[in-house]
């Protein structure tokens, strides 16, 4: 019996998750609501069936996520009976940090990176699953599946541990924690192919449909609510668009697309000449910016 590439990836991801549950005291799954999180969650449901998920989910809410993401998150938690924690950085909220006035770098640092560190400390989680894939970005391509973080949640890319065969090292010093990436070896196409085969629900924003958008800084930004300031010379227009990745709505560029089904999305990805993260403003706010964020503790 020869396994397909997807069957191998599925088995590997399940093996990784079981290893964490067997060896770590307080695991948590970082749930970002995106397609990768959907696949990771689906794999986890399989890995621990018939038991319920032996860990909670954590969503770091920047309060600037698309409304459809929040609706999807709550519906998913209900449908699967998940133990979902939602955390917002209270100081950032008090200060009114937002991407429009404070810029993407500060907003991401306060509302995502600092918020994540606060939440992990507050709940005392010692290991956190993330849906990052190595094909997404060049510093992620360098990270181990089990990535050790200091007590300050920092990643030191020059001090990564050996990680041989399927032997994963879960030992930590006091205060240290692990970020674990079960989808490390999946590609964008693998994720969509698997969503297609397994009929995994994803946020409707991935599918093309006419939406009100504004052209800003080289990207189509969705006017998701009335907090979005419309500048002089800007006029929202209805365009048939979809999102290749989802984050905070003011920082996620939509692409012109007619792909309204999963096969159509796969077809579009095969034909496109641009990478997945091209619509992510936060990747481009400075050179090597993903690596800097990871070093600071971003997942």
């Amino acid at each position, binding site marked *: *019996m*020869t*396994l*397909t*590439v*997807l*069957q*191998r990836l*599925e*088995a*590997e991801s*399940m*093996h990784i998750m*079981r*290893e964490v*549950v*067997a060896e770590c005291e307080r695991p948590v799954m970082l749930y970002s609501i995106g397609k990768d999180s959907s696949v990771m969650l689906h794999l986890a*449901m*399989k*890995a*621990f*069936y*018939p*038991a319920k998920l032996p860990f909670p989910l954590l969503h770091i809410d920047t309060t600037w996520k698309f409304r459809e993401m929040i609706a999807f998150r709550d519906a998913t938690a209900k449908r699967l009976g998940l133990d979902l924690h939602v955390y917002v950085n209270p100081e950032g909220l008090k200060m009114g940090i937002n991407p429009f006035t404070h810029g993407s770098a500060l907003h991401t640092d306060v509302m995502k990176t600092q918020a994540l560190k606060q939440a992990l400390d507050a709940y005392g989680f010692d290991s956190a699953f993330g849906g990052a894939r*190595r*094909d997404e*970005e*060049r*510093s*992620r*391509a*360098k990270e*181990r599946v089990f990535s050790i973080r200091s007590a300050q949640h920092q990643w030191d*890319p*020059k001090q*990564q541990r*050996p*990680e*041989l*065969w399927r032997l994963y090292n879960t030992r930590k010093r006091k205060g240290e924690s692990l970020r674990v990436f079960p989808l*490390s*070896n999946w*590609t964008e*196409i693998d994720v969509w*192919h698997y969503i*297609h085969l397994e009929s995994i629900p994803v946020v409707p924003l991935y599918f093309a449909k006419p939406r009100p958008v504004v052209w800003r800084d080289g990207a189509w930004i969705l006017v998701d609510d009335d907090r979005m300031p419309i500048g002089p010379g800007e006029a929202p227009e209805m365009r048939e668009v979809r999102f290749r990745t989802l984050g905070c709505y003011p920082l996620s560029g939509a692409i012109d697309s007619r792909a309204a*089904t999963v*096969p*159509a999305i*796969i*077809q579009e990805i*095969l*034909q*496109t*000449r*641009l*990478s997945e993260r*091209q619509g992510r403003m936060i990747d481009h706010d400075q050179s*090597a910016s993903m*690596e800097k964020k990871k070093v600071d503790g971003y997942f």
Partner: protein
Amino acid sequence: MSSPDVETYLRTQERRSLLRFITCGSVDDGKSTLIGRLLYDSKMVFEDQLAALAVDSKKVGTRGGDLDFALLVDGLSAEREQGITIDVAYRFFSTDKRHFIVADTPGHEQYTRNMVTGASTADLAVILIDARKGVLTQTRRHSFIVALLGIRRVVAAINKMDLVDYSRGVFNQIQRDYDECAARIGLTDVTCIPVSAIHGHNIAARGPEMSWYDGPTLFEQLESVEIGHEEASRPFRMPVQWTNRPDSTFRGSAGLIVSGAVRLDDPVRILPSGSDSRVARILVGDRDVDTAASGQSVTVTLTDDVDVSRGDVLVARDAPPSVAGRW
């Protein structure tokens, strides 16, 4: 491509096999450049990445403003500043026949430990050799580690042939040297290919420069080399990772089958305790199956209420491993 074509494409994808390989060898032999070239030639580099590469190549490149493919894989700031590879990077590309996961490993002696991490999951090793320098200490060291980790298939890519005037004599001499080195450490399946990663010669395409060479290009070799899954034909073994016990009605042992296959009602033994039982249920995810094979993550329940927990191994009762108390 219309929708039915996508379905066809996806079915083809499902038939494709997976080859994991590493690139290794001494520092500056062109490993990262080779991977950059593989990605570029298999059209896996996107326009925005190419634009970023062009900017980076001007800023920190070592190619006098030409595209420096190594910058596609050297993803850490410290690597880009110094122009070296510190840790292993994983990259993904596909051809019509195969899906590839390649680990680009560091050549520096002090980062050999990171090369080992990359090598441990590889089916094949591409060992680069600088045609001007021939077989070096680090070439031998990496070859030895490759052999030690059980990688049987090796491609020795004699790189930078452009810098030795595409000389057949130089290639033949290095091939002889390397074959001798490989034979001594027990590597028997070695293919030597003369390449120029910078120019792409004998990577995806041939050129008139080395018309004397009639062996496979690197792509041809990677696409056609047989991936033996020898573990499939060995007896059943499954290390137990975790006990799944949601309530009193279900107790299953979760794990990844490392060799052989298991069927319903198969007699199994639990090691090290030596207790015997039979397979009652096999779950792949939430699906009950009659049989499962090496490479799959499963949950197995047994017909008897025997002690089995993390660290134990489920094995075929009719072909158990030999157990010893001392070496």
